[in-house]
């Protein structure tokens, strides 16, 4: 196995017989022992039961208080205004507002899924090293270029809601490079690995676009302020 070294931990008291994986570029460390164990029943089982019950209680209360939405019978002649999808698709619908369907409906979600699927197979994700813990200047340059490129393309399509979270996350990423920032914050942010930055960016985009779709879009997919025009 290229790139990995095998290490056996021979002490059966601390560790069951397992293979430990050590990522290249880091000093070999012993795989942590599994820690103290307790019988699953009742310790875990009871917790799970309580969690299950809590879930059902929450759902039941929700079901008692709020009726599932049901609009008028489907009428192919009239599209309601606005025609909003389920909330988890509103980010996608917001993207469709800016990009042609092939980009927003196929390319971007396809890329997102592909990106998620290959997470464990990309080198950058194995690194549990903070972004600023090694060779950060060159990488910051690359990241900056990528951000600039993304924002440029988005600006072409006037997709401001995509740019905003990008810049916010980028701003946080850059913070540790600025000496004026308090040391504790720099240390805290500096330890975040690049993989986490990318994921955070993805989550920020998803959440931001979805929230816009839920809260700030009204008839004709026009921009509204929910505290003035109400929720649609």
């Amino acid at each position, binding site marked *: 196995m290229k790139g990995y070294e095998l290490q056996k931990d021979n002490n059966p008291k601390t560790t069951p017989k397992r293979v430990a994986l050590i990522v290249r570029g880091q000093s070999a460390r012993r795989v942590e022992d599994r820690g103290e164990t307790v019988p699953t029943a009742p310790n875990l089982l009871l917790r799970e039961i*309580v969690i299950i019950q809590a879930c*059902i*209680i929450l759902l*039941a209360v929700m079901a*008692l208080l709020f009726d599932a939405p049901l609009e008028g019978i489907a009428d192919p002649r*009239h599209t309601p205004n606005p025609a909003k999808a389920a909330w988890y698709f509103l980010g996608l619908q917001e993207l469709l507002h800016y990009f042609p369907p092939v980009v927003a409906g196929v390319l971007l979600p396809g890329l997102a899924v592909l990106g998620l699927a290959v997470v464990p197979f990309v080198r950058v994700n194995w690194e549990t090293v903070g972004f600023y813990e090694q060779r950060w200047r060159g990488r910051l340059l690359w990241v900056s270029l990528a951000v600039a490129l993304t924002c440029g393309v988005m600006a072409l399509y006037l997709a401001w809601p995509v740019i905003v979270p990008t810049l916010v996350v980028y701003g946080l990423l850059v913070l540790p490079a600025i000496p004026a920032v308090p040391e504790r914050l720099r240390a805290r942010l500096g330890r975040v690995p690049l993989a986490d930055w990318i994921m955070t960016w993805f989550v920020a985009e998803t959440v931001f676009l979805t929230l816009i779709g839920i809260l700030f879009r009204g008839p004709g997919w026009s921009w509204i302020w929910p505290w003035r025009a109400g929720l649609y």
Partner: protein
Amino acid sequence: MLNEKESSNRLWRWFGVSSVLFLVVMAISPLKDYFREYRDYQKAYADLLLDRAGSRKEVEEAKALAVEIRQIWIPDWNNRVDRCITCHQGVDRQGMEDVAQPFRSHPDTPHSGDDFQAFGCVICHRGQGRATTVADAHGDSEDWDSPLLPAAYVESSCGICHLGKVVPEASMITEGRRLLESSGCFGCHDFPGQRDWIGTAPRLDGLAEKTTPRWVRAWLRRPADWSAEAAMPDFRLADDEIDALVAFLWSRPPLNGPGVTGIGESSQGDYDRGRKIFRESRCISCHTVDGKGNGSAPELEKIGSKVSRGWLMAYLSDPHAFQPETAMPQFQFTGNDVLDLSAYMMEEFIEFGAEAQDDAYKPDPRAAEEGQKLFVNRGCSGCHAVQGVEQGMRIGPALTGIGGKPAGMLDFGKRDDLPRTLPDWLRAKIAEPDSFRPDLKMPRFEFDDKDFEAVVTALLAVSDEEIPPALLIRAEPPGEPPAGRFGRLVSRYRCLACHQVNGAGGDISTAPLTAEGSKVRREWLEQYLMLPTTIRPLLTDRMIHLRIPQEEASFMADYMENVYVDDAIPELLFPDGVPPESVERGRKLFYERYGCQSCHMIDNQGGYYGPILNGLGARLKPGWTFWWLQGPQRWRADVRCPDQGIPTEDATDLAGFIEAVSNPGMEDAP
């Protein structure tokens, strides 16, 4: 170890608490379900029945009432389900008329219990049939766009199945449909299934020969100012628009058909003779003059200021050449009659204080061009035909399904003040179209409150509800129009404008002609056609004097004698003359038993409410009298003569008495 125990204790506590909570939460929905709203109503109804129970059986019946969902299910009709009777349990029960809703009996309608089972409730009242809560059933919930119809408009639902112009026993929608037709709504809007509506707007060719620019201007400014009966709405035209329209109309070539030339404005003609002809012909049976007339024809009070004398004479000679669709019959006036009549009318019916005529009007060609555009854009061409403009262009939106449109899909424009309901929207839209958006072209109609209600009712019936063909009652088939020579005469004299034949025709005369041959004597009919006499002095809409020549009258009387016969009416009641004992018995019945003299005059004594029976025998056949007496309402539902349930032998004797007394000396001969 103790730590573990401690945490384990805590876990069990969590488990206990969450389990109990779980149980409680899960119990709420079943409880809510058990105490559904309709349960209280059904219990209240059972209590009500118990209170009112008069017998042991009724008490047991009330006690046996189960709490359950009741419904009318119509599988053959889109699977309709109406559960209104879950709460409205008294609808099909008699004797609950005095009870408060929801348990009150359904008021009497032309449809009865079996029909309710076949139609359900929602088709008439709207709302949500499947619902079992008050708010949802009445359609007040947001997801249901067909709320309960206000009681004032409930007649509109009759019109969903009854597609004809006249809906029996539903005067509101009948009136509404009449208004929609007479106001020319269909000139701009497409109404599905109402293609048999007839426009009354005249052709506008040759207007220069008929009237003056001054008059047209005044008319266009606001038709109702000229005549309160004007069918044309107020288009709120600006002065320059009116000028353009007049220029356009005056630039049309003169009429090709009947000539209006020759007579000019000469003062020939005998005014007094003209007045006599006007009265004799009973023009005011239809035309309004001094507030008289039934309003079925234009008012004539200011006709002299409107039309030219040449046009009036040409029109009186041959109205059908000008307006093929008009209800005006062809009077058989001679040339002199027309001359005198027009002399009288032109002098008598003028608007006082009118300005002098502006003879030399020359239309400005550019204004005329502008006017032509306007003529199309404002929808004039929807109702009025004129040479050079395509007719039938409807500039308004189609009204297909307007009566079922969800309120959420209506454009309320600037009207924030209106309740968000379809009837309110419709009413406001007709009353003040420009209050929604200033550029709306829709004119204003001179409607009063009742008219608005009727029109909205008729519009609410323009529904795209799917109705099983078996339930549809289409427009009454226009009764086969009489054919041949008789048909041509009936058309010339426009008999059907007032009289009904086989259910078709106008409703101005109280005398349908369907059984005329069985009803009246041929000789009388011939005379009557030539010179009508007054039969019912109380009525103002009397038979007009058409001056039918003897030959035609004779032919028509023959035709009716032989064709318009009802087999149910005995042809010969007394083949051998009226037996004297029958006359005597009849006399007693007439005066003592049935008290006919309180309304009818016979032997120059009696009431004045019904037709005079003196000389009746010369008019009516005794078979008819006999048949009539046994149920006057068989002839027409609105006959005032009470149905006294006269048995056959009494009817025979009465008919004999009337025959003998009112027509002494006349044989009941074939």
